[in-house]
């Protein structure tokens, strides 16, 4: 037979109520003060540390990405510059060549001109000399003719004829 009188766990007892209150309040206070507080603080600190580390990693990653982008930009810039320099060089080369060509042409023309001039001058000089020589010869011949004429008429003619034969134009 089950006695309800023995089923004491369902009856609130002053002693147990009192001791539970005392023990639990003390437990609550001591645990909060000496256990949960320091643990919670370390947990919070660790969480902050982790967050910080993550943030820093993110920042570093971003910086890295930035750096890479910048590098790429620099590279592109360098490439562009190189292209520009090459183009410039090619341009100036072409220019130099063109100029040189022009100069050479001019020089050539000038040389040709001066050669023509020289030839003209030589020709002129030659003509003058020729004229002078012809004059001198004519005078000599005339002198000789005049001298012969004086001697014989037929001989004179023959002589004039030999003189004329002597004249060789060139």
């Amino acid at each position, binding site marked *: *037979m*089950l*006695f*309800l*009188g*023995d*089923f*004491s*766990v*369902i*009856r*609130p*007892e*002053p*002693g*147990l*109520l*009192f*001791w*539970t*209150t005392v*023990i*639990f*309040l*003390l*437990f*609550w206070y*001591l*645990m*909060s003060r*000496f*256990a*949960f*507080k*320091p*643990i*919670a*603080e*370390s*947990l919070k*600190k*660790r969480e902050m*540390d982790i967050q910080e580390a993550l943030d820093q990693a993110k920042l570093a990653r971003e910086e890295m990405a930035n750096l890479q982008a910048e590098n790429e930009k620099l590279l592109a810039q360098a490439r562009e510059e190189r292209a520009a320099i090459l183009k410039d060089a090619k341009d100036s080369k072409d220019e130099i060549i063109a100029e040189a060509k022009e100069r050479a042409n001019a020089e050539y023309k000038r040389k040709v001109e001066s050669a023509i001039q020289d030839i003209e001058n030589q020709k002129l000089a030659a003509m003058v000399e020729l004229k002078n020589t012809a004059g001198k010869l004519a005078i000599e011949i005339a002198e000789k003719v005049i001298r012969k004429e004086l001697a014989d008429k037929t001989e004179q003619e023959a002589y004039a004829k030999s003189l004329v034969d002597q004249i060789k134009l060139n």
Partner: protein
Amino acid sequence: MTVFRKYWIALVFSGLSAFSFAQDHHGAPAAGQAAQTGHSEPAAHEYACGHSLSIEPEFNAGDLAVHHISDANAIHIVGDVYLHLPCILYAPGHGWTFTTTAAFHPHHHGNGTRSKDGYVLVHGSVMRLQNPAYASGEQEISDYTHEEIESDGKIKTRYNAIINGQCEPLDAKTTYDGGVMGGGVTSFSDFSITRNVFTMLLTAILLFILFWSAARASVRRRGEAPKGLLNFLEPFITFIRDEVAKPSIGPKYERYVPYLLAIFFFILGLNLIGQMPFFPGSANVTGNISVTIVLAVITFIITTVSGNKHYWSHVLWMPGVPTALKLFIITPIEVLGLFLKPFTLLLRLFANIAAGHIVILSFVSLIFIFGGAGESLNGSIAGIIASIPLTLFMMALELLVAFLQAYIFTMLSAVYFGTAVEEAHH
């Protein structure tokens, strides 16, 4: 491998619990014989005031379970070995009495053989002699009886002490159930360090040492990765903080976390130590309504104190509801709910843990039921075969319940705090 090892531990535990109860009951027939041969009134087991407690009645699993889940003034370890605890007793008009249970010279079943200043020990609990003639000094007590008497139209169990062959009625300690649960205010109150108080103290101290060393480790290794004990305890703490407090309470959760942690570990520790079938465990602390009342009342006080305007307006004068409806339905229900919440809280924990203990004890009792209370060895063996898997299963289940009930109590406390501090959002 580890799974197997866990089951192995549970098996050992259930085996041990069977062993410890067997010890309890094997002593019984011998006790009867000793009473018959050694005492001045041989075989006088029937008195004018009911049956003697020293006769071994027919085995009753219900009695056994109720006895084992009850609080007691002395801790029965094994056989006739007790851990004696201090007794702090107060009788109005008589004053305080300080002694220990050793003064009652208990032997079988926690029955004392001596009275001390009017107090005796029956079934491990202190009772008081109604007769003022024995209010001081010591008396030899030869036996105890219990009888059913009618008082105020209700049948009550009364215990009597046999002193010099005379029946002396005993008073049980005061309880605040108003007589509804078979108790009531009597001639004395018991403020002793009982088995439950002892277990509570022990659990609180063990938990404190555990957490204190973890906290010291956490301070010493601040900023480093946790390890060892701290690493084991931290998930529980972060679970309560992040999965219980934060979602249930909201932005103001932080100031409630220490209470939630304290109540969670207090209940969990007591539940778990209560699962241990031998000393210093087996005390049914969280399965005692006095304990759960205190815990629920503290939750209730915190809820009430932290209730803001929004909370009280919703309880007392729900906005946006017709006045008549408010006056006759909503407000009465809400006010009732205010008290029902902690009531369900205390009842749930108490009932779950007490029931768990009762079921395990009942399964262990199968051994004695099948064995005809120690008469049939074959029956006992059959009982053991039936009992061990059932007890094993129940213990595994109770392990789950220990965690579950601690979690539910904490969770619901957090939810109540949450409704109290919730801000208007409409």
